[in-house]
């Protein structure tokens, strides 16, 4: 261990964030910059009969008004993942136009952009665009979308399926095992749709420079290089080398800022049309209507157990909404990021998941914190707990009975699942044991039976999750339909003074890369953190990058940097050997200097760096400079896991749930900065609890979103949460140089079923076996009445 790694180093980026001095896209103001506003459909499904922009064009301060009838009409944004039908039919991939032309497919879909001298004038003029619609019936529920008479989202196909898919063992074999099982537990539920709610709404500024025929796009995205690639090569057909994408401070994304959005593409196109910069910043209402949302699965599941409570088979059928169009990674979410986690932490020998993914008249669904894994974990952890209760087995006992035994991935091989993946390393019973100690399980059960005598409803819920991060390697994901690689790039540029600039293709939108990356670079080079600068979010600075999502930054992005540091030290050693007149093999590198073994002869990192750039007395044949870039393509996913435990009290009169305790024991591999890991877990738990208790996007029959503001969409607040009790076990990842697994989504993935299990536990003696999320007071109260 060095000076920094493993310590709760305070975040360097916080000084500017806490002082309100960050530079978010909307803070940027360019010379001659225009502002824009969109005209959006109030209908979920409608024919566009006519668009009249004449009044708007005449309005004060208006620079331009564009509709799909203008040049932008030919372009659409692409989907980055292809999942074909089980029968071989190609995925149905409708054009996702920048502006709707003939047909509207969800409320909030844009029909025109109004560009004006100020935001106020753009908004005023947008109201003058008059659109005639013919409203059509809509379908928003993914299961109903597959009904025979469901309104079609895209007329090109005979039904609403975008694709269907399955994974695991042969269905007939799984069904046969269920037939024979001692006990079968069944569940039917909806994993409700969620809005991502990043604190900073999406914002874009496109700046076309006539002189160089070049574009700069400032965008609040999680992956600037991918946006550039998708926009240049697949959407607008403009030369990639002429486009710079800048994404510096970004105020949260949770997945919703991974994707290439129509607005971002359209302002880029429009900037060239008018020869001036064009800005668009979403407001909160637009964010609800247009940011890609999460979850929205309709689930039907069966799990079979033998008489001892060992799981013998698991069969699930799901309808997973895609929304009106295929968002960038949408097809991967309910499939390769979901079905591949159906093994959970259990030895289940037979598993089959079947997914139907329909289009619906809603905003598209894509990855939202956890992305497919929370849905898998919710199902597994609920049905295992439900099965335990039905069989009269303690919920912790059933887990211990079924856990995959510990394996480190070095001495013992990785665990091959029934659903394609091979787990890297794990100790699932370890986290549950630790969680039970923190809880004081036996005492809790005593307290619970006492409380029940007094009519007080308290309960405990468990969730023992696994998830998959840093999805890779590229060849494998390519075979699974990814249209991109999933490696990362890390460049380490040692300056002549020995100071270090690190360029990472990972992106920080709140995570704290500027701190954590500097910590391990400092330790590895044996120099102070202050000598290291982490740069990200600018395609002109960073060679390439795949961005940040799926908790991949440290395990993939960090590893790429480690590879470059190795190259730096290797070359540095050659220079040092020359300066010390010693053989490379005779040198040790520690604490920022090369020392000849067994002597006090040494040369510092700074001296070597200067020599590399002022190569007067220099090894023959060696290139000057000390600057290396590496691509790291992981051998496998990483698999964090953990146990989350919730303790709740339910108000017997009103059904309101109070979360009294929350225990999170997470194993995220090696920990670089425990404070940041805790912070990630806290935030993740808040979002997971949000899904369990509060959050839900609701559409009415006509396709109107009735939860389109914070008056109706309930976000978790500080007082909804107890102090979160965190702890860790450490099972290093065996296949990356840092031994890290990823901590960005674990909190969200593990927490939701723990809370719901706790509420069901509190109400079980009243005959409650399941409650539909979110556990609103009304829903809980009604469950208690039956």
């Amino acid at each position, binding site marked *: 261990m060095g000076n920094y790694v493993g310590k709760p180093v305070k975040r360097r980026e916080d000084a500017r964030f806490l002082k309100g001095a960050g530079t978010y896209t909307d803070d940027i103001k360019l010379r001659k910059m225009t502002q824009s506003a969109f005209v959006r459909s109030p209908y979920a499904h409608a024919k566009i009969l006519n668009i009249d922009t004449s009044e708007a064009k005449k309005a004060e301060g208006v620079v331009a008004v564009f509709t799909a009838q203008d040049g932008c009409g030919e372009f659409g944004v692409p989907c980055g993942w292809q999942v074909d039908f089980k029968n071989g039919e190609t995925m149905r991939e409708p054009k996702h136009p920048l502006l709707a032309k003939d047909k509207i497919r969800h409320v909030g879909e844009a029909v025109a952009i109004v560009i004006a001298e100020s*935001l*106020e004038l753009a*908004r*005023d003029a947008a*109201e003058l665009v008059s659109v005639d619609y013919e409203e059509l019936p809509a379908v928003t529920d993914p299961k109903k979308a597959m009904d025979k008479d469901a309104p079609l989202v895209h007329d090109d196909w005979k039904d609403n399926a975008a694709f269907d898919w399955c994974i695991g063992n042969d269905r007939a074999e799984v069904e046969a095992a269920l037939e024979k099982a001692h006990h079968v537990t069944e569940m039917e539920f909806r994993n409700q749709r969620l809005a991502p709610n990043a604190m900073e709404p999406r914002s874009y500024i496109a700046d076309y420079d006539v002189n160089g025929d070049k574009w700069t796009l400032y965008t609040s995205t999680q992956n600037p290089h991918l946006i550039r690639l998708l926009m240049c090569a697949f959407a607008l057909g403009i030369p990639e080398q002429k486009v710079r994408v800048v994404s510096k401070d970004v105020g949260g994304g949770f997945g919703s800022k991974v994707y290439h959005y129509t607005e971002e593409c359209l302002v880029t196109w429009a900037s060239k049309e008018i020869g001036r910069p064009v800005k668009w910043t979403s*407001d*909160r*209402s637009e964010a609800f209507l247009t940011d890609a949302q999460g979850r929205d699965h309709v689930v039907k599941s069966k799990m079979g157990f033998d008489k001892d409570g060992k799981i013998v088979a698991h069969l699930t059928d799901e309808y997973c909404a895609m929304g009106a169009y295929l968002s960038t990674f949408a097809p991967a979410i309910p499939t390769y990021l979901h079905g591949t986690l159906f093994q959970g932490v259990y030895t289940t020998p037979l598993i089959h998941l079947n997914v139907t993914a329909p289009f619906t008249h809603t905003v598209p669904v894509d990855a939202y914190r956890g992305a497919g894994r929370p849905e898998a974990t919710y199902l597994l952890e609920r049905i295992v707990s439900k099965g335990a209760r039905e069989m009269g087995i303690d919920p912790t006992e059933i887990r211990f009975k079924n856990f995959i035994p510990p394996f480190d991935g070095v001495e013992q091989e990785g665990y091959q699942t029934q659903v394609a993946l091979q787990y890297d390393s794990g100790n699932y019973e370890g986290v549950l044991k630790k969680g039970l100690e923190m809880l004081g399980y036996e005492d809790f059960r005593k307290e619970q039976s006492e409380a029940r005598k007094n009519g007080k409803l308290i309960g405990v819920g468990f969730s023992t999750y696994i998830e998959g991060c840093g999805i890779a390697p590229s060849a494998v994901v390519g075979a699974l339909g990814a249209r991109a690689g999933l490696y990362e790039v890390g460049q380490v540029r040692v300056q002549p003074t020995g100071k270090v600039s690190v360029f990472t293709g990972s992106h920080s939108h709140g995570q704290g890369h500027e701190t954590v990356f500097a910590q391990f670079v400092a330790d590895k080079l044996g120099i102070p953190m202050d000598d290291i600068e982490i740069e990200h979010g600018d395609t002109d600075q960073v060679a390439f990058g795949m961005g940040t999502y799926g908790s991949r930054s440290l395990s993939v992005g960090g590893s790429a940097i480690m590879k470059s540091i190795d190259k730096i030290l290797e070359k540095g050693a050659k220079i040092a050997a020359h300066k010390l007149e010693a053989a490379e093999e005779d040198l040790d590198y520690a604490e920022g200097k090369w020392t000849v073994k067994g002597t006090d002869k040494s040369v510092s990192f700074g001296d070597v760096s200067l020599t590399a750039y002022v190569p007067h007395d220099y090894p023959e044949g060696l290139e000057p400079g000390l600057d290396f870039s590496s691509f790291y393509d992981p051998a496998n996913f990483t698999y964090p896991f953990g146990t989350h435990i919730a303790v709740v009290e339910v108000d017997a*009169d*009103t059904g*309101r749930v109070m979360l009294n305790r929350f225990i999170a024991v997470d194993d995220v591999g090696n920990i670089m900065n425990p404070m940041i890991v805790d912070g990630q877990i806290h935030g993740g738990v808040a979002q997971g609890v949000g899904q369990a*208790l*509060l959050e839900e996007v*609701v559409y009415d029959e006509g396709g109107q979103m*009735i*939860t389109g503001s*914070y*008056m*109706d*969409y*309930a*976000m978790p607040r500080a007082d909804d949460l107890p102090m979160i009790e965190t702890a860790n076990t450490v099972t290093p990842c065996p296949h990356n140089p840092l031994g890290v697994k990823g901590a960005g989504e674990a909190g969200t993935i593990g927490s939701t079923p723990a809370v719901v299990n706790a509420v069901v536990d509190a109400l079980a003696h009243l005959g409650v076996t399941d409650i539909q999320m979110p556990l*609103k*007071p*009304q829903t809980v*109260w*009604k469950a208690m009445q039956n």
Partner: protein
Amino acid sequence: MIPAKFEYMKVSSVGEAVDLLEKHGFDAKILSGGHSLLPAMKLRLNRPEVLIDITGISGMDSITEQGDEIVIGANCTHSQLLRSELVQKQVNILAQAADTVGDVQVRNKGTIGGSLAHADPSADYPAVVLACDAVIVAEGKNGSREIAATDFFEGIFTTTLNDDEIITAIRFPKIAKGNYQKFYQSASRFAVVGVAVVRDGDSVKVGVTGVSDTPYRATAVEEAYAGNGDAAEHAVDDIEVMSDHFADVEYRSHLAKVMVKRALEA
């Protein structure tokens, strides 16, 4: 989130405000804390052409004891009410309700006059002014008049205030014993149900908000209580109960009974 164009005027007397209201008619709106009006304007659901800011009128944010009454200026903010020793001591139920309104920012800006004039069916104060038999003092072109709280609320976002009138003050009798119970809506934190109970010897006065599109005095509860019946069961007698995705008619009716019971037992 950008309002339509409007003109802004700040007045320093009630007379000035009334004159402007008369002059601009429907195009004008009074602005006090802005915490109901401005959100609606930003969504362009409301688009007044003239805003008449009354927060600069001196004396309209005072809290005074006048004989048997506590007189509260319409511009008093929620924070002022919950912190005022006079209110805490003499109309404690009002301080209790003020403490449940929104969050700190809302409480620091929003006013009691604005809340009453706005008449949001889920606002907290209506239950309290009804249970307290408070009197709303309004001033218009024909001078000042007093409106009993029970005559004030007419429906969803509607009151018996005339278009040219502004609320200048609310007169509360001193309340020895009162309790406000709120079951908040998880997203907005407005009241799904809010119940104010004021005790006067052996009788009670019960104000209910959130349940119906108009806040009401639960006279059936009051009568049952006087007759030693199961008073809370009558919380929604003869009331048309609202429904939304947080609380349908059945659940809201049940909550009303629970909150009445809790307020009666407090």
